[in-house]
């Protein structure tokens, strides 16, 4: 394949990350490979290769941030606010500093002037419970924790803003001096004419739904180890974005980017909570600076559960209008979301515009501050919340119309992106509906509701999620003199499998054995830039860059091999790290070629090119659930989930299915029991432990059949892959909620569907 090298030039392109579309400047890659389309002959991409870093994980040698040991390292502990609103009137660190083994303390004057979620680091004005106020470091964590308890702290308390009602009360307390309502409220997005759409409807329904604060509960908490050598700072950080962390830390300490290195080799889960530098990073770096020693600052579990991001709570009032034959004429939603003390404006309204064909759609979103920890990204932020309202309301509409819920969704199938008035790069949601329904046995489900104490029900939901990825992302591929191959990219593997799929893409492109390829990632100093691992973008962003780099390396390798084999590069092909000449049947191992070259290094550079213009790139899916409800106790058991997905080409089906199962299981928790509780009067968190904040255990897991329909998307990018990690959580909760409604014959208005809440829905009706 003789590629014509393209002249490099800078262009702009649109990239969607977690519902937010950004225009990015992109340098055109050195080449644009032929897309791997439907008929591409691929040998390693698409294979169920085992995870390349599995051995390190099953033997316990994988070093996570909290496992980092540095010579002379000290341990930090944080003093946190015991109230949700007020201010510090006295802070005396001297009793702590007098304890043997305590080395230093920091309060607001000792740390850089940075804001985290709108609150100054170690601010003495208190905006939420457990806000960090000061920190200590000592020879051991135990001494540091003991020392923190001796700090003399006096506070003046004010009534906090916690609930929706308190936040909306214009005469009530203020979460912060600027008020409770975010200035961007209401954010209204419309297409068509909603009133005309409602007038055209034969049937309209209106329902309200509320969704809870969900906590990421990554088993590895946030944390960092910081070490200064002269004016150079190294940070080991549990982060989804090493380059973002570097930028934030360098700015805070007034350092050039080249003086800060961020390292993240293994990470115990992120799920959206670990983007950018949190309090612990600055506390570690400031204490390290003060003491001249490396400092480790890892959140304890209470810190992680109460001050380390969360999914925001929402209220959604949904109105749907449709003709008698089930064609949507109007979709309208009013959303109120509580951000906590800060965060960003994730959009529950967006999915209302995206999922179905409808000429008249309106969303109005209000965002409020409160004296609770700031929200952040959590696996498909916005869409997960919005899907609960939209998809539960769609089932209500289906019942009103007497149309099968799946049939109703199929009748409102959108063939183009109506909101942006442009085409989809590819969309196989129709196949997801078909294959999902078949594997679930949707058409064979009972039409009559069961009676008795244990009731069964089924439900479904659709999903979509922008998952096209995009630039900038860079990769280098090097071939060593022994024929081994290194893929270098400053991306992250959060447990997703990025190390593995990038190695597969490189091995495929080079015709190498997968076992000869090693992926190095998670270091800013030595590796080219890749963005945060968020928005399900990594495979579709970094994958194409790796492919370009590997092609460039392969071309150099072939040039050298052609010389040694007395033929031309076009005559060569390779597999299993062997190069064959088609004309004369000669054969050389990569190793043979590279040994002959000695220390001449074969290096390929690659980058991610722009996204196609005026094209929406999205992932899709259809999810089906069967539940059993005990009407006496209100206990819901999810029996099985079938989940069908279009995420483009699947690089590694096993690892991809693991992501689907993980998303579904977090969705089961969101549907049934995950909810952060805060005392409405004091603002104190009531369930800051894993015992009290329930996440699914192995006994809660339904039978899961999660799969991908065959849908390579060569328009999206030349690997034809799209994102897949976030989509499976989106439809899970509404599918389960719809199954519960099907089982009971009563409406629900809130999740999680805890026993007491389910009993409430039953008794309200009877």
């Amino acid at each position, binding site marked *: 394949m003789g590629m014509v090298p393209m002249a490099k030039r800078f262009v702009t392109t649109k990239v969607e990350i977690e519902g937010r579309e950004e225009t990015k400047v992109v340098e055109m890659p050195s080449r644009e490979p032929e897309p791997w389309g439907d008929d591409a002959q691929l040998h390693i991409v698409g294979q169920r290769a085992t995870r390349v870093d599995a051995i390190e994980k099953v*033997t316990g040698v994988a070093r996570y941030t*909290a496992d980092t040991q540095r010579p002379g390292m000290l341990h930090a502990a944080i003093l946190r606010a015991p109230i949700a609103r007020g201010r510090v009137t006295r802070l005396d660190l001297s009793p702590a500093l007098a304890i043997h083994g305590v080395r230093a303390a920091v309060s607001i004057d000792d740390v850089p002037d940075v804001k985290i979620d709108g609150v100054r680091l170690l601010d003495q004005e208190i905006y939420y419970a457990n806000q960090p106020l000061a920190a200590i470091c000592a020879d051991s964590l135990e001494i540091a924790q003991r020392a923190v308890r001796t700090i003399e702290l006096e506070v003046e308390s004010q009534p906090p803003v916690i609930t929706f009602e308190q936040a909306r009360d214009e005469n009530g307390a203020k979460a912060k001096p600027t008020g409770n309502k975010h200035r961007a409220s209401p954010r209204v997005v419309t297409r068509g004419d909603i009133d005309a759409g409602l007038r055209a409807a034969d049937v309209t329904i209106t329902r309200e739904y509320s969704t809870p604060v969900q906590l990421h509960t990554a*088993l590895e908490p946030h944390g960092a180890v910081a070490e200064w050598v002269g004016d150079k700072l190294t940070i080991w950080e549990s982060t989804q974005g090493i380059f973002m962390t570097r930028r934030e830390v360098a700015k805070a300490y007034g350092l050039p980017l080249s003086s800060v290195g961020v390292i993240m080799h293994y990470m*115990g889960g992120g799920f959206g909570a670990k983007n950018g530098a949190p309090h612990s990073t600055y506390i570690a770096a400031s204490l390290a600076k003060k003491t001249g020693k490396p400092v480790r600052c890892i959140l304890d579990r209470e810190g992680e559960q109460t001050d380390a991001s969360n999914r925001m709570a929402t209220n959604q009032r949904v109105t749907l209008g449709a003709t008698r034959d089930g064609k949507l004429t109007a979709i309208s939603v009013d959303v109120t979301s509580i951000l906590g003390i800060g965060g960003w404006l994730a959009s529950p309204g967006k999915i209302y515009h995206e999922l179905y064909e409808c000429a008249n759609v309106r969303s109005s979103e209000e965002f409020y501050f409160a004296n609770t920890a700031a929200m952040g990204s959590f696996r498909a932020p916005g869409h997960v919340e919005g899907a609960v309202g939209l998809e539960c309301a769609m089932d209500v509409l289906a019942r009103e119309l007497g149309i099968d819920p799946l049939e109703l969704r199929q009748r409102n199938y959108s063939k183009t992106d109506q909101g942006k008035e442009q085409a989809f790069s590819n969309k196989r949601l129709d196949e997801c509906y078909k294959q999902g329904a078949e594997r679930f046995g949707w058409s064979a489900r009972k039409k009559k509701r069961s009676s008795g104490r244990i009731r069964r029900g089924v439900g479904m939901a659709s999903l979509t999620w922008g998952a096209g990825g995009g630039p900038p992302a860079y990769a280098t591929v090097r071939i060593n003199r022994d024929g081994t191959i290194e893929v270098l990219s400053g991306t992250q593997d959060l447990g997703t499998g990025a190390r593995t799929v990038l190695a597969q893409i490189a091995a495929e492109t080079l015709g190498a054995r997968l076992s000869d390829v090693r992926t190095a990632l998670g270091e800013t100093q030595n590796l080219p830039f890749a963005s945060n691992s968020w928005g399900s973008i990594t495979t579709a962003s970094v994958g194409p860059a790796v492919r370009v780099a590997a092609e460039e390396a392969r071309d150099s390798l072939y040039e050298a091999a052609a010389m040694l084999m007395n033929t031309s590069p076009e005559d060569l092909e390779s597999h299993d790290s062997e190069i064959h000449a088609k004309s004369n049947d000669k054969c050389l191992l990569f190793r043979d070629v590279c040994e002959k070259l000695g220390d001449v290094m074969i290096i390929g550079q690659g980058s991610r090119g722009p996204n196609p213009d005026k094209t929406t790139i999205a992932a899709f899916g259809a999810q089906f659930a069967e539940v059993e409800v005990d009407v006496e106790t209100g206990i819901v058991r999810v029996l099985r989930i079938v989940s069908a997905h279009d995420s483009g080409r699947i690089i590694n089906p096993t690892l991809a299915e*693991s992501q689907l199962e*993980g998303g579904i299981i977090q969705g089961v928790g969101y549907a049934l029991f995950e909810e952060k509780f805060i005392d409405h009067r004091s603002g104190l968190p009531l369930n800051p432990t*894993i015992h009290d904040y329930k996440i699914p255990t*192995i006994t809660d897991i339904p039978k899961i059949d999660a799969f991908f329909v065959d849908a390579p998307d060569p328009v999206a990018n030349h690997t034809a892959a799209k994102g897949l990690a976030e989509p499976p959580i989106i439809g899970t909760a509404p599918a389960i909620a719809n199954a519960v409604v099907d089982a009971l014959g009563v409406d629900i208005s809130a999740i999680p569907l805890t026993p007491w809440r389910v009993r409430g829905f039953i008794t309200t009706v009877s």
Partner: protein
Amino acid sequence: MRLIVNGAAHEVTAPAHETLLVTLRERLELTGTKLVCGRGECGACTVLLDGRSVYSCLTLSAACENRQITTIEGIGSGDELHPLQQAFIDHDALQCGFCTPGQILAGIALLEKNPKPTEADVRRGMSGNLCRCGAYPKIVRAVLAAADGNGANG
């Protein structure tokens, strides 16, 4: 005090209230054993004490003198994996890997007690070990597969 960890004896000086988790991680630098909740709610710190699974965060080091302590580092290495470690790799029974050492040790203890568990036995036996990535379906498969291997060997 004398601790026997993965077959090797270590002389350790630690306060009487120090947990086995802290001794293993901070003094012996065996960091495969993870701290997640520190109060016996999650299973990430599971180790074997005389062959039985215990939460090392709730176990005092002083109570382990001269007893056999097995951590993830002691059950198999890259060259020679324990069959359950191999089953975890083969079935992709892990994602981020943070809970994996605890899961594997809990699985080994379960198979020691019950070499031929049913799926329900596995779920019950492993229910003290949380995984937030959601590797559970594949953990069940890996433990059952390793149990099948037991049958073939025995």
